């Protein structure tokens, strides 16, 4: 007897998508933190970090962020975001995107 795999697969996939959305939301924060690091560097003509290393660090982080963003976008289909917006999340891909109005919500 085989276990029912469909629902488990769906659940796992939507869970994964949720975490990807979390990652996408946290990415700019990570960028702010990493690009804030230069503020901690020693300054001044003598012991200051060489400009070339600063350039390599900043551009490296920057390009890494862009790359991470590209990878996230690739892994994160638009429907996942739509479902996330609508607050359903676990619906299959072919389900309608509209969330039914709750009874306590006004339609207008």
């Amino acid at each position: 007897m085989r276990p029912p795999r469909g629902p488990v697969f769906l659940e796992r996939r939507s869970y994964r998508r949720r975490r990807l959305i979390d990652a996408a939301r946290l990415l700019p924060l990570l960028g702010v933190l990493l690009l804030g690091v230069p503020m901690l560097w020693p300054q001044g003509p003598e012991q200051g970090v060489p400009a070339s290393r600063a350039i390599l660090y900043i551009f490296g982080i920057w390009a890494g962020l862009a790359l991470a963003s590209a990878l996230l976008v690739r892994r994160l289909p638009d429907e996942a975001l739509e479902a996330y917006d609508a607050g359903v999340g676990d619906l299959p891909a072919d389900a309608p995107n509209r969330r039914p109005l709750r009874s306590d919500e006004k339609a207008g």
Partner: protein
Amino acid sequence: MVSLNVLTAVCICYGAFLFLIAFAAERAGRQGRSGWLKAPMVYTLSLSVYCTAWTFYGAVGYAARSGLEYLTIYIGPSLVMIGWVVGLRKILRIGRSQRVTSVADLISSRFGKSNLLAVAVTLIAVVGTTPYIALQLQSVTQSFAIFAAPEGPGAVADTQSLALWVAAGLAAFTVLFGTRNLDANERHHGVVIAIAVEAVVKLCALLAVGIFTVWGIGGGLEETLARIDAHAALGQWQMDNGRWSGLIFLSAAALLCLPRMFQVLVVENEDERHLRTASWAFPAYMIAMSLFVMPIAVAGLTLLPEGSNPDMFVLTLPLSEGQSGLAVFSFIGGFSSATSMVIVAAIALSTMVSNHIVMPIWLKMQPGQGAMVSGDVRHVVISARRVSIIGVLFLGYLYYRLSGGGTALAAIGLISFSGVAQFLVPMLGGIFWRGATRVGALAGLATGFAVWLWCLFLPSFGDGVVLSQAVLAEGPLGFGWLRPQALFGISGLDPLVHGVLWSILLNALVFTLGSLLSFPSPMERLQGAQFVNVFQHSGTPRSWSGGTAQSEDLLIMAQRLLGAREAQALFQDEAGRQGVKGVLPEPSADFLLRLERELSGSVGAATAHAMVSQIVGRAAVSVEDLLAVADETAQIMEYSSQLEAKSAELVRTARQLRQANETLTQISHQKDAFLSQISHELRTPMTSIRAFSEILRDTPEMTAAQKARYGGIIHDEALRLTRLLDDLLDLSVLENGQVQLALAPVRLSEVLERAIDATRSDGAEMVIHRDRIAEGALVETDADRLTQVFINLIANARKYCDAPRPELRIAVSAEGAAWRIDFIDNGSGVPRDQQAVIFEKFARVGEQKAGGAGLGLAICREILARLGGSIAYLPGQGGAAFRVSVPRRSAKAAR
């Protein structure tokens, strides 16, 4: 060396090239071949309008002066783009669902469509952008001057007029492609594609100069890096931390708030999903634009003579190396940056100025009610746009002239950023906080703008130009805590960071306090919910293109309110009237008025107006929500009509029940009456029979004549009893359906003849009118039974007609497959309250002429029911009237 004439020719050719591209794109868009125009890459490239001439030329100068600080200008927007899931996506969705046309529109629309707020935002935007446009004009004239320098100072003596020419050319381009059509979407395919091409041009130009610097002059990557490290001023990391963080914040805010960025990011956006590509492609573009800035700066500083303008290294470096071709390319790159910025900024500003300042004034100046302007006002809007574009560019030129185009102008870039960054507070506050109010937004903006003016804008003209040295040093009127660059006595901060910090902080503080202390209007609250919960409200994003989409939406809405068939008929009719093929008419003003009228019948005038104007123009509630309302309204209407129907049915049933009850009560009374009657009827003959039979038995001395008389009475009474019992038996047989019918064709006249003959024995003097011709009709029935009915009716008439000269009219007429035989006398008829019961058993009208047992009509009814006909009382004929209808062919015979 490139001559000025060649350069001018290059500029003109480049301009013509842009015209051609924009024209081709517009034409492709009109012909529906706009697929490639809507590619996500085009969107991303159009965002590069962020990189103006100030960044193209100025970044190198910035790097030469302040090292790596220039990177902040590119890092901020990159971070915003990378975080698109959090902020930009929401702004885009709001822009789409609310059909926002500018940053002023966004803010005013969020805060209850306040025009005052829109005017405030527009004015700040104009004040913040004008110096920036002047900066572009300056950079173009400066770059011209670089090429003109070898030809002597006289060659380009008139840089002012050159700036004017550039401004005029840009105005022409913008007017041509920015106001070509008044699309509800405010999208300009031609402009966007031209901007995208310019983005490629400027990127390639800067990369070309950079590659030439690194590999052409510098001797490779490692050597270039080494040379940077070796530079005395720029070799080490040296940064004011406040500026580093402050400028990243400022440039990030600028991406959202700058009118031109809002234009390309939100208004010109074709598809929300383009943001996905832009989220990594835009940062990549920014990286590419800033990658070679530092090497060029260091190379310029080391190779070019002391005192060279670092802002022009991008041009002077290739020129000094004899690469005039590269220099011209670089010049075109700078020209591209300047033109794209000016074009988009002019479009964005003109939209704001015309929508929020010119049009309201124009509408006010119209005689009569402003909103009721009839006819097409689009030409007015377009003219307003064109005038605004020219006005904005002229303002920029004027600023350039008045400021003298010196270094003061170069410093204004960041100050301009910080001015428009004031929008950030109401913008983010508005889309993430439902409690934000118009009062808070207005007060916050006013505060932020005032602080910005005082701390940044006015001092930017230089010491003693607008603010005197004394004010800068000691504060106005000696108030030290109001010193423009050390508010509240906090000195030591970088003036820019100081100004940004205080203006944004105070703006946010006043915004929050104002919002907390004030109460929003209903419109504000509605819009607040729409904005903050935009993802719940808007559903899947749809693109709005052209009039048919609107008509379709109108049809969908109308169907929900009018019903599918009526709505389609209405639309088809209108389409036919307009001469349009298909079902969907153009949403013309006449049609909308008509539709609105139709709809107002269903939902009331105010709602109909709101709904139509929602779909056609821009109104408070999103279409989806209105559709939901429409659905709900339709449901409620259906429900209430169902209720109405049900309640009408109940009323009907109740009336029927009441009638039935009345009938039953009456029948019950009659039964009681009959019982006493029948007992009386039975008793009377029985009593006389008993009495006379007792006399016969007990009186032996009776004469024969007396015996005969008494015997006759007993016989008559017995006959009466028998008749009564016969009638009752007959009725019960009829009611039980045990009767045998002898069906045969017979003429009505024969039946009537027999009936009249049978009743004539009474010897009454009643006149009977007959219609001999009609009576000739053949009918297939049981003649004996029908005769019985007729006898009954005629006898009744003889018995009950109370006229002095009783008359009976017998009329025969055809009614479908039946004959109608009416018996109408000239008596007083049957009283209304009796009409309902005369066909019931034992019913007798009144107490007059007590005769039958009240079974006659009941028997008639039963007989006719067997024969497939009916009998009814005909009121209002001047006397008692009975209508008998007999089928021409018996149902039984037909079988």
